[in-house]
């Protein structure tokens, strides 16, 4: 069962997830690019993630309703892709490239410096909810190894000494 709340124009699913009208519109716009609406599944997950920072369980049903597919199918996709987050993350995502060229070019030192500075390891979020640290496969920046990404920004080569000032840019 769904109801529309007039003040906010959000659609509230029976399980209590509020899907913003503009997010649903963005999903429908993506669906129009494909022969079948299911193809917009990854886009829909990203739209929810952009709003909430992650994809809460309750969003799965809402996305399934918009796409017209089963929640199990949405869940299957949501758990497959590494950049769809199924638990709360920090305000900023730090993706550290651990592939071969970075491994040969100082990745170990960079990773250790990040772990020391942030006080968290892969898959963990700092206590102030500022950073989540994750590994990522080759960032395609091998002529700038070792490389990392913070949110939408790619950096490299990055040394341990660069980190404090770099992280300052992400409050």
């Amino acid at each position, binding site marked *: 069962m769904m109801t529309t709340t007039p003040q906010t124009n959000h659609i509230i699913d029976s399980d209590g997830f509020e899907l913003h009208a503009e997010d649903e519109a963005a999903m429908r716009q993506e669906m129009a690019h494909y022969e079948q609406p299911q193809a917009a599944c990854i886009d829909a997950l990203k739209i929810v993630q952009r709003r909430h920072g992650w994809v809460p369980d309750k969003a799965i049903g809402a996305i399934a309703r918009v796409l017209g597919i089963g929640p199990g199918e949405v869940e299957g996709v949501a758990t497959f892709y590494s950049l769809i987050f199924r638990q709360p993350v920090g305000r900023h995502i730090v993706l550290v490239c651990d592939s*071969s060229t970075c491994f040969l070019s100082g990745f170990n030192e960079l990773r250790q410096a990040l772990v020391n500075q942030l006080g968290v390891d892969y898959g963990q979020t700092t206590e102030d909810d500022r950073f989540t640290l994750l590994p990522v496969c080759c960032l395609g920046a091998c002529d700038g190894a070792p490389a990392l990404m913070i949110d939408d920004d790619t950096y490299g080569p990055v040394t341990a000494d660069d980190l404090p000032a770099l992280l300052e840019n992400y409050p």
Partner: protein
Amino acid sequence: MSQPIASQRDSVRYRSRLLQPEAERHPDTHPLTWRLRDDGSVVWLDEYLHKDGYKSVRKALDEGDPQAVIATMKEANVRGRGGGGFSAGLKWSLTLQGDDMPRGYLICNADEMEPGTFKDRLLLEQQPHLLIEGMILGAYANNSRYGYIFLRGEYVTAARVLKRAIDEAREEGWLGADINGSGFDFDIAVHTGAGRYICGEETALLNALEGKRANPRTKPPFPGQSGAWGKPSVVNNVETLCNVPGVILNGADWYQGLSGEGTDDGGTKLYGASGLVENPGLWELPIGTTGAELLDRAGGMRDNRQLKAWLPGGASTGLLLPEHLELPLDFDTVGKEGSRLGTGLMTVVPQEQSMVALMRNLEEFFARESCGWCTPCRDGLPWTVRLLLALEHGEGQPGDIELLDKLAADCGPSLTFCAHAPGAAMPLQTALKHFRHEFEQGISKRRGDTHEGSIPVASA
């Protein structure tokens, strides 16, 4: 005083760049890169049109014979630049077409994630219209009604550039209905991914595009017979598609003439070198250029290190030795040496690097990125990582190396759905062949040692 924080951020921001100045790049020798600007800014439509942009589309549409486009591509023998090396023209000739066949899809594989590979990023970020032009030609030849650029989610700059370029092209009539007055319709959308290396596998990509888990599909049917949504579909790499406009404009003979004497392959290649070299980078060079020249262009080994080995084209290619530096880097020559050209960007390994540790890093990557569909890959690769970790820490057991041999052999060609497992096996098998003594040194000297339960499954 300027803001130190902002300058710090800028100073380490990564920018894709070609290490060849404009003065060295010419239309007749550098078809992929001659239009690029030294400052690395985007070549937008106006400038692109001034630099012979969309001429090949005009030519092909004026001639009005899609089969002739395929024939020229076949004759030119443009081999797949994503690493497979399969003739794009031959692939196109196998796409089902006809009055009783629905129009299908032309898909650009821009999911560049092969470790050591950073070439497509340059073309996507700085020269989007060359790719769009190649896609229009591909769509015309294959009777595709719609195109997708399957772009990895991390390439945010490329996504922004491509979307704007597609809008520009549409506004000027190069995309959409009745392209350039020809009656041919075609348009393109950008599909961004959300991680996972396996999406770059041709059939896994189709599942990802359809909004499903990116498990590979069985072949046959090949995508040209039944691809996206069951329609005839063509999947080509970014660099492959960027080769098409030059071939159509200048012909197959011109393309064949671009490469050197010592190779059967035609055209140029975006080659690169990374790892512990002085000046890692990218260059457009005749296909068949040697590893020695790439290493030389990269300024040699960093800090006078010695070269121990190199991967010719990504993590899924076999290790080559210093003695292989003089070989022309083309698909067949590298294949004969027990490796693959792959993406053609060499990763350089210095003498002091432990091969066991490097293989552990590579196999951790392949284990993590396995989609989990086939047993030798899903279960064999984590087991491989565990054995390598033990050897790395000097805690290996007698029999471990033979077990690594077997696990790698079990990942060989045709034993799994896709090329992920064979790609994981190849570097390990070459390391075990050339540097077996390093693995043997990891066998524990103490009797009764066991690594049961004491070794973490993965360190990264």
